[in-house]
């Protein structure tokens, strides 16, 4: 028994048949081969699988693919535009916000949501905003700095734009 779903991922509409039990993260990784979204824990603690669903950060290991029917999803692969890195990607690079890189896509997608709702967060607000994402390498410090960097860059960009 499969279901037909239509999901728009990174601006591209996909029509697929999926088992009802298929997790969104497996649909993204296995069916669409978008392997930038990682799986770290299966219980919604680590946040490595975070994607944007209609603009909201969502742990894709905790959502079924059928629930994504008709929705717009952005994954890490969809963040850079026209070959230019997103300010968050730039920030993580500039501030050494990643080591092994495994949590990074989820961190960046969570930060996207954070900055969309709070373009100029304090350090405490950033740290609180990352509460649902685990990193074992960096100690979070440079991730916080990366998001501060991106916030500044995006506000400047908004002024100029």
């Amino acid at each position, binding site marked *: 028994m499969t279901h037909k779903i239509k999901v728009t991922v990174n601006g591209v509409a996909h029509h697929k048949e999926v088992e009802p039990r298929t997790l969104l993260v497996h649909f993204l990784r296995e069916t669409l081969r978008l392997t930038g979204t990682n799986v770290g824990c299966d219980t919604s603690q680590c946040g490595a699988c975070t994607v944007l669903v209609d603009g909201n950060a969502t742990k894709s290991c905790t959502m079924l693919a059928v629930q994504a029917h008709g929705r717009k999803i952005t994954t890490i692969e969809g963040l850079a535009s026209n070959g230019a890195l997103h300010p968050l*990607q730039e920030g993580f690079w500039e501030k050494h916000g990643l080591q092994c890189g495994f*949590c990074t896509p989820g961190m960046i997608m969570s930060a996207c949501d954070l900055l969309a709702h709070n373009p100029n967060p304090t350090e405490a607000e950033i740290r609180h905003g990352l509460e649902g994402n685990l990193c074992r390498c960096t100690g979070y*410090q440079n991730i916080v700095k990366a998001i501060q960097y991106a916030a500044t860059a995006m506000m400047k960009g908004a002024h100029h734009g």
Partner: protein
Amino acid sequence: MAKYVGASIKRREDPRFLQGKGSYVANLQLPNMAYLAVKRSDYGHARIAKINTKKAAALPGVIGVFIGQDLIDSGIGKMPCGWNVPNQKTPTRWPLTVDKVRHVGDGVAVVIADDPYLAADALDLIEVKYERLPAVVDARKATEPDAPLVHDDVLNNLSYTWAIGDKAAMEQAFAEAEHVVKLELINQRLIPNAIEPRAAAAQWNAATEEMTLWTTSQNPHIIRLVLSAFTLGIPENKLRVISPDVGGGFGSKIFHYPEEVIVPWVARKINRPVKWVADRTESSMTDSQGRDHVTKCKMALKKDGTITGINVQTWANMGAYLSTLGPLIPTALYLTLLSGLYKVKGIWGEMSGTLTNTVPVDAYRGAGRPEGAYVVERLVDLAARELGMDPLDLRRKNLIPKEEFPYQTPVAFVYDSGDYHKLFDKAVEVANYKAMREAQKEARQQGRLIGIGIVGCIEASGPAPSAVAGSLGSAVGLWESAVLRAHPLGKVTLLTGSHAHGQGHETTFAQIVADELGVGLDDVEVIHGDTGRLPFGMGTYGSRSAAVGGSAIVLSARKIRQKMCKIAAHQLEVAEEDLVYDQEAGKVHVKGSPNKAKSFGELTFAAYTAHNLPSGLEPGLEESAFYDPSNFTFPNSAHIAQVEVDRETGEVTLQRYVAVDDVGKVINPLVVDGQVVGGVVQGVGQALWEHGVYDKNGQLITATLMDYAMPHADKFPMIETARIETPSPHNPLGVKGAGEMGTIAATVAIANAVMDALAPFGVKHLDMPLTSEKVWRAMR
């Protein structure tokens, strides 16, 4: 002058990770791939009465179901232990157990299906009938006469004992002591929890009889060696092990795991590519775990605070089997650290490695050294309190003076270099320790529970030399390899035996090469993690990559330079000794005549055209070096932490953390700071929250991240880092390890800070993790 080494250069590997293009094993998808899942024990200890696989095998989409006996019948070997101390009893371990399950997660059977969801369905159809047995989980209780035996042939569950030091000097120190401090402590079990779960995939080429294994390993060559020699039996020249991007290791991905045998075995058997990816619970139940020591220790002092003796007795929990390096950790990486930063004559440490119904224990970031630092620095702190001294003063009084390096400790090590007084001076200055103490006094008067923890820790990183490692029990050498391949048009490829899983070698190693050869950073490509492309290499663990792997790079670069000078001398018609290799400009010129020169690209091209080479010189420009260091390096640290304990809830808040480290010369400060801060946060995790808990039946009750408390971003202030630099005298870069210092120092710095905060309650010691509940109860 170095252009790149010493500079904070942002990492060249980052763009792929930032765009979701990392090549982790779980991402691999090959045509016709099958998916493997492992049926694991739900019990800590039970005899296997019967395994019925019929229903699972009959499920449509299932390709095969195999049990341990199937592997044994086909000639698969036992999982070996790669570190053997004298008289060690190494219990039998098969990739899938056949007689008993000995820990929750012990593998019993595997199922292979067309789809990972189907494989999971089939697992539930495998029926295993168990006869439950009593379990033992505590390292010390395991040796008691009535304890259940984990392996029938290991009496008292005692795998080995080990001791080091000067026992007579220790006994004399305690006989003459003016003050003795005693402690019993537990260094609790930890679960490493790299965010990437382990995974393995394999492809068999039936035509060439070659096997390729992709695995989440910190050391693919060692995995190939063990697979060929002991477990899988495919010859090493027909077996390629690839360890691509790996999502964190922290030690847990050093070791040879059963799935690395089973996955390729199945791939050959069914002649299809096979992939296995652990879920988090599986990782919790099967990745080697860390620490788990029960320790009785004491320190002898004079009234003036001079430390004269240290005596330590430890029961180290090895888990249900000996993991690949298990016995190394509580022996040569633990008891050898008991001198700390201090000049102490009478040190004696002894330990017992015991088997229990728990997941095997092996190296986890710091690996033995945090346990050593914890013992020494808790004792020092308690001594200061009992003698009424400031813990800083007591430490300063006992530091090894810089004039005494190289310093021979009574516990085997010869410390290479250091300036511990300068180190503490720096920490005190950065933290403004005096002001911290004054503020603490004031806060106490207001009823606030502020605590300050100060520690000085030694690390031994980059275990070496190979001959000594061999005499201590190592089955392998601990050198490192590098091949530098200069291409005809002047680009360079470095093949390194080190492995990066977050450390940033693609940047830092390129910095070394670029400076040594005088080429641009972008001209250097760094390749690692593939036995099919590299010379044999030992991989990355024990903070060895810069000191050992980096030194091999320098040596191979020097050989390249020598050959280039030979070619240049011939073409410029001068003697070799009249030439200068200008590392800044990347050219060879005649001394005093910078214009009489050959550029790097001219010389690489000349080496490959071979039209005009000195007679007898081979064409081409590729050099290798195998570097076996003469000693460990000894990074050291002075860290100061400030915490506040909430009187009402017991919650500990970290308010400030100052980390001053001496890691010798620094290749890339950005990367080193990243290592230090990451390590500190991991150390704080152990001190305050993390604990792998087993109940009395051996049930692991912290097998998900819902139950195992990891450090979160909102629990930390900005960590302040600073450095002093005493170059290691025995490696060409002058570097020391930087990867583990944070974890080693932070754990005990936080413990000391919390005990300081609780001093008004007379609390002398609490075992970690210092959870709110535990702290709250201690205040009652």
